[in-house]
């Protein structure tokens, strides 16, 4: 299993540009999450999904959108990029069984908006 994969690894955007961060998992997990991590800070939840077709906002959703058309994929869309969105973005997934609490994280996408 590849686990959770994210593309791209790095990206530089100009203010006002848009982009999509890709996230794919091959563990058949229903739960998927997007977090951002600013330097020296903990991860903050942007959006999450409990299954295909179902998404909801996390702690810091402004400026982002998500979709979940399949179990495997959970892309994060940035519209009108702003310098405040400069951060490292992590995608994570989790199984659905009652005993599964562990979240599996991808390697992250480092985004700079200038």
């Amino acid at each position, binding site marked *: 299993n590849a686990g959770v994969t994210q593309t791209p690894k790095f990206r530089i955007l100009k203010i006002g540009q848009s982009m999509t961060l890709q996230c794919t998992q091959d563990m058949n997990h229903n*739960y998927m999450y997007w*977090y951002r991590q600013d330097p020296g800070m*903990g991860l903050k*939840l942007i959006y*999450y999904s409990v299954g295909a077709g179902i998404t909801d906002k996390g702690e810091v959703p402004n400026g982002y959108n998500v979709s979940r058309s399949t179990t495997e994929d959970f892309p994060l869309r940035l519209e009108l990029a702003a310098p405040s969105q400069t951060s490292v973005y992590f995608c994570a997934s*989790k199984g659905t069984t009652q005993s599964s*609490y*562990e979240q599996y*994280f991808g390697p*992250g996408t480092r985004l700079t908006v200038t």
Partner: protein
Amino acid sequence: SQKIEQNSEALNIQEGKTATLTCNYTNYSPAYLQWYRQDPGRGPVFLLLIRENEKEKRKERLKVTFDTTLKQSLFHITASQPADSATYLCAYSGGYNKLIFGAGTRLAVHP
């Protein structure tokens, strides 16, 4: 609202010693707390989970405690090694396992 606080200062210890990291939370006791390890440039990796009704949990050289009176979890690494150097994150789970993370504590183990 609930907050998770970890010592933001780096912890420097000698190889072989026990490292102890602290995680404090405000307000209500979460049903469980999770601890993750994060290496530079990588995503967090799950280490341990401890439930509200568990005083202590162990996994190899790792030990986690949960004190609901003090509103605190302690994370111990015994016989520490330079390879244990990383940032350790504490998180509590909201509904749907939405994790709320502390800022993390950086541990440096010196030979």
